[in-house]
């Protein structure tokens, strides 16, 4: 059975209905997204592609709960996140979303271990528990020997792997990645993508990835295309 | 010209940062100016002294009086043009806080102080009223004394409740003349003392002596003191300036402390300015590297930084100095008669400018050096 059929068989973890987003710039209304409706099933590995200005990052931001839609409904795991207030949204993100950024966004003054531990500070776990989980996560991404290094002492690829460890440490519902390989050389990019593959395949994590790199998109099971704020035809990359 | 434009535009890039730094500079330059003026005001009494006036007092200390008959003996000394006796009254007007100098003086006193300008009719009214008083313009303004007002003063050295009638207001010939003083008749003091405290009558606190020729001041001083050596009340005669300075010198420790503190505020703002320039330069390291890559020399990069630092310093100086005058004016009026003369001196203004210039230069030194010597590749890596 094809991956798309597999996905459809499972319940959608993200339900987007008629979502629109616009900004007001100097008195003018600038539309970014128009009437987006989309389902994402649990365990999917989805790529969001499109030319610059297509609104793909904006859509990712809405799904991740760091921005709010101007209209429409957005349900993640049954929760209407458009209706949550700022405080509730912050708590929701801490429990449900794992972030991976293009430029890693690690705290330069914290070690790898402390960076990975950061999301756990928002939970009730004790120091000992936090430490153990962080070490486990770093071991999983192959950086057990770099726990006390500062980001400035790590290569780009290693920093991104730390970021991935940080993204999964709270066992979130969704992992969102905005151009995860955008700043990496080919070898490091492949390492990172392989890691994402494992997260999806072995751990069943739902991954939504914004990218304009065909190589990255090839790893995904489903590709959603955006152009000028509207959905275009979906494509399915060649089966792995 | 292009360089200047570049420097100027650079200062406007970070409006908040530049604005705050400017504000800090203005506050610092202003404080510095005010403190220096306070110290100057302390010495102002000595500045107002005339070179042809001497003060004769008891050699032991000011606390001891001199007998009345000394006056004629002093008058007889060669080189002496005029003598008048005076007593420091030291009373309290309403509250101890309302301090101003009060003197019981002989009739010839005002002739020796020509810089106290009194209208003829007021002087004559004073001479006719034995309880009359002549007050200075600044004193009159501070407490609202008008001609004809009765001023009650509680004596501390000469006990009792005394009352005087304002018969004249004197103005100073120059800005630095002290117009905060209160004069009344020594005769009135003395006749009262004869009745109540006879042992304290017929005595003067000091004699003010006018010499015919200012060059003879030292010689005449010695001659006067020689007259009274080995008597029951030996005298010490000195120029009026030396006499005034004598007071100030006894509070020297405080004045030195205030001067030091005024420079402390400059150091504080230097730290702030140096911080601003260091941060600014660090953030623009990429730009400096780019300029150098394009072929501009390290001197050019240095100039940009020094220029920006000096531009801010200049702005702060101009504003700070401009504000010093109105604020000093307000402060001087608030202090009332405590500081009879409160003027911002030219020396102070020059010091303010010099300090601001120094701050502008020193703050830029380290960042300018770093920017000038940065390797192009290191600097470019700093971008993004």
């Amino acid at each position: 059975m094809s991956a798309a059929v597999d996905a459809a068989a499972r319940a959608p973890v993200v339900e987007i209905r008629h979502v629109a987003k616009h900004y007001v710039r100097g008195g003018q209304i600038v539309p970014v997204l128009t009437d987006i409706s989309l389902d994402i099933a649990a365990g999917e590995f989805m790529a969001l592609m499109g030319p610059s200005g297509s609104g793909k990052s904006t859509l990712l931001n809405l799904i991740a709960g760091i921005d709010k839609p101007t209209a429409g409904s957005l349900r993640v795991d049954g929760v209407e996140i458009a209706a949550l207030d700022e405080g509730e949204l912050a708590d929701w993100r801490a429990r449900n979303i794992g972030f991976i950024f293009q430029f890693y966004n690690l705290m330069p003054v914290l070690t790898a271990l402390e960076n990975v531990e950061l999301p756990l500070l928002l939970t009730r776990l004790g120091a000992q528990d936090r430490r153990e989980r962080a070490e486990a996560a770093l071991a999983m991404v192959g950086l057990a020997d770099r726990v006390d290094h500062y980001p400035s002492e790590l290569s780009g690829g290693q920093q991104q792997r730390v970021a991935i460890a940080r993204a999964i440490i709270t066992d979130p519902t969704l992992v969102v990645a905005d151009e995860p390989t955008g700043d990496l050389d080919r070898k490091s990019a492949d390492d990172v993508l392989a890691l994402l593959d494992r997260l999806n395949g072995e751990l069943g994590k739902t991954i939504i990835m914004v990218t304009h790199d065909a190589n990255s998109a090839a790893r995904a099971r489903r590709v959603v295309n955006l152009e000028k704020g509207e959905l275009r035809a979906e494509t399915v990359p060649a089966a792995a | 010209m292009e360089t200047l434009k570049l420097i100027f535009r650079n200062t406007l890039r970070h409006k908040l940062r530049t604005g705050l730094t400017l504000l800090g500079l203005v506050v610092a330059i202003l404080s510095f100016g005010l403190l220096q003026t306070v110290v100057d005001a302390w010495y102002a009494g000595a500045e107002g002294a005339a070179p042809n006036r001497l003060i004769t007092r008891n050699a032991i200390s000011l606390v001891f009086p001199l007998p009345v008959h000394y006056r004629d003996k002093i008058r007889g000394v060669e080189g002496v043009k005029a003598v008048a006796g005076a007593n420091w009254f030291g009373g309290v007007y309403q509250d101890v806080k309302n301090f101003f100098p009060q003197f019981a003086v002989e009739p010839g006193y005002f002739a020796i102080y020509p810089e106290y300008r009194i209208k003829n009719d007021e002087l004559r009214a004073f001479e006719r009223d034995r309880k009359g008083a002549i007050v200075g313009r600044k004193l009159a303004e501070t407490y609202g004394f008008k001609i004809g007002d009765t001023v009650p003063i509680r004596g501390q050295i000469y006990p009792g409740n005394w009352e005087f009638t304002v018969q004249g207001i004197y103005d100073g010939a120059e800005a630095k003349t002290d117009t905060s003083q209160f004069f009344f008749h020594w005769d009135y003091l003395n006749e009262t003392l004869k009745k109540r405290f006879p042992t304290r009558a017929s005595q003067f606190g000091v004699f003010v002596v006018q010499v015919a020729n200012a060059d003879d001041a030292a010689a005449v001083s010695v001659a006067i003191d020689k007259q009274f050596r080995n008597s029951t009340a030996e005298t010490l005669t000195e120029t009026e300036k030396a006499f005034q300075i004598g007071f100030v010198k006894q509070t020297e420790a405080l004045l030195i402390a205030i001067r030091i503190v005024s420079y402390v505020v400059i150091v504080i703002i230097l730290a702030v300015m140096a911080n601003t320039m260091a941060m600014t330069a660090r953030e623009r390291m990429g730009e400096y590297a780019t300029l150098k890559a394009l072929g501009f020399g390290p001197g050019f990069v240095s100039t940009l930084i020094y220029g920006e630092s000096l531009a801010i310093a200049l702005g702060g100086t101009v504003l700070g100095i401009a504000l010093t005058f109105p604020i000093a004016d307000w402060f001087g009026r608030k202090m009332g008669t405590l500081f009879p003369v409160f003027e911002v001196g030219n020396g102070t203004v020059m010091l303010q400018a010099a300090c601001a210039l120094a701050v502008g230069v020193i703050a830029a030194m380290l960042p300018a050096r770093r920017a000038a010597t940065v390797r192009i590749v290191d600097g470019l890596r700093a971008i993004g």
Partner: protein
Amino acid sequence: MAIPLRYTIRNLWTRKLTTLLTAGGMALVVFVFAAVQMLDAGLQATLVSTGQDDNIVVTRRSAGTEVQSSVDRVQAAIIESQPEIAIGADGQRLVSKETVVLITLPKRGSGVATNIMTRGIGPGGLTLRPQVKLVEGRMFKPGSAEIVVGRSVAERFDGAAIGDAMRFGGRDWYVVGVFDAGGSGFDSELWGDAEQLLQAFRRQNWSAVIARLTDAGQFAAIKARLEADPRLTLDVKREQQFYAEQSEQLSNFITILGLTLSVIFSIGATIGAMITMYAAVANRTGEIGTLRALGFRRSNVLLAFLFEAALLGMVGGVVGLALAALMQFVEISTLNWQSFSELAFRFTLTPAIAAKTIVFALLMGFAGGFLPALRAARLKIVDALRAA
């Protein structure tokens, strides 16, 4: 606080130069703030320790200082006969009828002629001041032209060493001893025999009468009686209060000037802190966005930056206080305007001053960090991330 302390501390440590300059500026302000208070505390301590709580000073009414005061022999006898006056070991009333004058001595080094308080004491004079101890030489012989000098006078003035002769009042006076008055105002005085000084200055009346009460609680009774007596025109004050009042003008001046300066200086230092914190927020905008995305609240961000600013203030406060503490080794001498004579005193650090200083430093930090912290907290997540 959710955002770890480590984050704040290490950020300050990373930008060493900036942290140093900003905290340094604050340290200087704190130094001035603390030093001025210490100066005033030292002045008060000196004058308060000049008095015993069971001694009284009787002067002519409304005379502010002993120099201005005059008490005649009849009045002195009446005072001495009051029942509240204690009786000494020798069976005599514990009273000292004193005459006080100012003489001038040249300051060592600069030679500046300075007014020195010279006190003629009665037989009970030394007993009434238990804090005064002879440390060199011997006490003057009553009825002679001998004098003893206070420690501060011996150190700071020429012609005041044992064996020196001073000339005033038409005769020579011989220095035979140095006394230590425990840091009180007496350290700046010369003492001699009251009757001798009276004669030398051709005075009839005493300046003041100092007396010991049988019990400190007797003060109200003796004050009421003496001040109500129509034959007398006297003021009765506790010795401590008498000397405390003499410092009022100088103390006021120091306090007002000091406070004004501290406020103005603190504006400068706070501006420095504000500039630094605004830059910190600007440089870490991306980090702020990331933290918010991860789930940290606006309040967490606000507190983290406020804490950073407060920590800067704290560092400045501790350094400034430490520097001010060093001033305790310095002794200041100046003219006390009210007594018109030289007074030497030290900088005194009290726990209250230390506490006030630290609070002041923290407030400066908060004041400087508040607006920048607010800006950090109000950033929108997407804007902050875009700026990274």
